[in-house]
């Protein structure tokens, strides 16, 4: 262990005699360093410890049944579905940044898109665990898939829960394809810089013989554009479909038409909150400040203000419709949300999602990495509570007062929730260690020197080029 460096090897200026070479070196050295610094090991050990809590609590749940959670009637969804919606929401930022911002030609996305995509995939993986264990018999999830089975029955395709299966699995598949395809040129860079046989072999296999031919780039760019165009409606559809799980039911507080756009806005909000939360330590720690700059944090914080206002508007509109509809159950539900037994969670949500992000109106706040990190954390807490409020207040106060109740989580509930962060951070730390954290080829393509001196074309995007190396 003597080889562990106490000095962060990533703080030095990147090597290279051109801007492109410096970008390559700045990103590649993170994965090439023989031993990452001590802090990485500490973080990884913590993540593994939390992951083991996650696996342990899941094992306990599978062995004993879901009764070890607090999940019971009337709160039959409770923590597992809150966590599912929370994670799937976080998983929206990556593909939004990769696809929608790509179509809108927001070149600043190149600094953050790769690890936002990675975050998306890991968040979707965390999300996927929860419905799987919440079904009670986790060995039977294949009942939900349209495969011929011993019962000679098929799933019911008019159920939003079945739509969910297709939406989430399609989203996971396309996100992975998008992510992997984006990494192929960067894997080729890693392969060509490799100094050991195994690195050359492993990165060589995943790079699939990419050599940067322009004839290949032509099809690659076209494919990337098409994937972005396909993924854009997909991003919007996934959380819409998740919201259908609620909106197509009859429950007051769930049965509303505002849910799909409201959920999508919330998902983008929460996802960006997670992106800034990861970006601040990542740029600090891995010496990526030249690539992920303050101005990128600032742009993301502006997105956070916008989505925070959208979410706040949705909260107000829910109250307005509850009053305007004249439906007494709906009205009761919302008064109960704000002033009933779960008022503490409602006001936590309002504070974290609507009030704190308004601090980003001040330039001093939104250009401060520490403030960005803290507000990002608040947003994640707030978005978790949003799903808690929606699920628990409505389920415990429905039409029939005789079936009212109060959801009390158990220790296992908290272990499963907290442990899911272990899975997320374990995967994320491995990603930081072994995969290209920044899309080098894309960053280079938008660097000013990629465009200058070309007589046939005026200099595009030079003013907003993302990288100052």
């Amino acid at each position: 262990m003597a080889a562990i460096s106490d000095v962060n090897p990533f703080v030095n200026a990147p090597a290279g005699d051109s801007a492109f070479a410096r970008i390559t070196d700045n990103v590649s050295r993170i994965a090439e360093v023989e031993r990452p610094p001590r802090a990485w090991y500490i973080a990884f050990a913590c993540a593994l410890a939390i992951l083991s809590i996650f696996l342990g609590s899941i094992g306990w749940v599978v062995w004993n049944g879901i009764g070890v959670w607090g999940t019971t009637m009337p709160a039959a969804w409770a923590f597992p579905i809150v966590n599912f919606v929370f994670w799937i929401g976080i998983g929206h930022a990556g593909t939004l940044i990769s696809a929608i911002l790509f179509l809108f030609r927001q070149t600043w996305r190149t600094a953050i898109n790769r690890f936002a995509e990675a975050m998306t995939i890991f968040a979707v993986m965390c999300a996927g665990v929860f419905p799987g264990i919440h079904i009670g018999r986790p060995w039977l999830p294949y009942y939900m898939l349209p495969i011929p089975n011993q019962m000679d029955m098929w799933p019911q395709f008019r159920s939003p829960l079945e739509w969910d299966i297709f939406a989430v699995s399609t989203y996971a598949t396309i996100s992975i394809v998008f992510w992997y395809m984006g990494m192929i040129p960067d894997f080729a860079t890693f392969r060509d810089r490799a100094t050991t046989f195994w690195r050359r072999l492993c990165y060589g296999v995943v790079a699939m013989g990419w050599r940067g031919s322009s004839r290949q780039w032509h099809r690659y760019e076209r494919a990337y554009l098409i994937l972005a165009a396909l993924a854009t409606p997909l991003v919007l559809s996934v959380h819409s479909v998740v919201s259908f799980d609620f909106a197509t039911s009859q429950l007051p507080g769930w049965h509303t038409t505002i849910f799909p756009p409201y959920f999508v806005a919330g998902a983008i909000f929460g996802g960006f909150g997670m992106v800034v939360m990861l970006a601040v330590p990542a740029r600090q720690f891995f010496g990526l400040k030249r690539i992920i700059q303050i101005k990128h944090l600032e742009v993301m914080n502006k997105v956070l203000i916008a989505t925070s206002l959208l979410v706040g508007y949705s909260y107000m509109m829910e109250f307005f419709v509850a009053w305007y509809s004249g439906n007494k159950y709906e009205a009761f539900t919302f008064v109960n949300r704000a002033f009933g037994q779960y008022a503490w969670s409602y006001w936590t949500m309002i504070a974290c999602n609507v009030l704190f992000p308004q601090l980003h109106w001040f330039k001093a706040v939104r250009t401060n990495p520490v403030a960005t990190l803290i507000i990002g954390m608040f947003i994640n807490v707030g978005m978790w509570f949003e799903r808690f409020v929606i699920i628990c207040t409505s389920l415990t106060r429905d039409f029939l007062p005789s079936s009212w109740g109060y959801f009390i989580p158990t220790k296992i509930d908290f272990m499963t929730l907290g442990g899911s962060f272990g899975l997320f951070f374990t995967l994320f730390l491995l990603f930081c260690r072994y995969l290209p954290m920044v899309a080098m080829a894309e960053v280079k393509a938008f660097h000013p020197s990629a465009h200058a001196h070309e007589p046939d074309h005026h200099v595009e995007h030079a003013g907003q080029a993302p990288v100052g190396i």
Partner: protein
Amino acid sequence: MSDSHEPQASDSGPPPLHGLLAEYRTPAELLRASKKVRDAGFSRWDTFSPFPVHGIDKAMGIKMTILPWIVLGAGLTGLATAILLQWWTNAYDYPWLVSGKPLWSIPANVPIMFELTVLFGGVTTFIAMLVLNNLPFPSHPLDHVRRFARATDDRFFLLIEAADPKFDETDTRALIDATHPIAVEGVPEDRKTSDKLPTGIIYSLVIVTVMSAVPFALAAKARYTKSRSTRVHIIQDMDSQPKYKAQRENPVFSDGRSTRLPDPETVAVGELREDDHFWRGQDHGAWVRTFPPTFRVDEAAMLRGQQRFGIYCTPCHGFGGEGNGMVAKRADELAQGTWTPPSNLTDERIRNMPVGEIFNTITNGVRNMPAYGPQIPASDRWAIILYLRALERGHAGKIADLEPAERTGL
């Protein structure tokens, strides 16, 4: 590409030229060079860059790829798959009737149509990009050119293959030199790397392929053969539980009964039934001839008895008690020869029977008449007997029994 995988030493002379490689420092230089090579009419040439160079398609004369059309086809296939899948599974093969909704309606099936369109389109985009780009492409002569490693870092390269019909080593080199590259280098054919898969990998692939068919073969065998052994039951799912099943012995209790008997020498509350007269129609072992003292003989009891008689007795014995109820008539019609006809309750034998014995007959049944004790409370049984006595009296009546006024009404 080399066809041979023998070591280079066995070949005579240096390896033939694969092509000429030129290196440039900036994308702009590469663009200018590309236009020259394009205009010189070469066809087998390519440029290499760490990122897609803006305008290189035009500079090289690259035609638009057919990829979008392939994706369109795949997307439509996904759409058709979703429509067929949902219609066939939910409306045709296993009609799923849910809350009276139509078996097949477009709006409820749109989400999955959308998802499968995107899924098929997206995955096809990726696979088609690889296939059209000839990827994976494990080995290339350029891999052995040291400087070419920077093609994925910060340098820009142009390669004209020797296989191009216009290629001539001196002329082409002159053309390239005119574009002011940093360096020009002849790329030899690769004779060291075999373009065949190593035999170890081939055998592994064959073995894996064959092995992967085994589970399917076992599943197919299980589907088309019969077996007497019980199925492998890894997860119990509460399938085998110690519980009573109808028409079976109860595994929970040693006597195999499901209904438990009361403990010996015990009586449930209110079930002592000491009064032999009322409960059994007996008095010291002899049938009683009187109604029990606790039973009130009055008109209310008579009407109650009439009603209960109508419910329980008339199906066989008939409304008049003559043994001609619907069941008896039907049995006579069937003439199966196994039928024991119900008694005529108005005949001499029953009329002289002690009420205690009649009570016992109702309670416990006789011949093929079932026991009505469990169905009819004891007081109602006495009420039925009371009504029966009235019926018998009516049958045995004579005209003289009537009052003079009533006689005229006949």
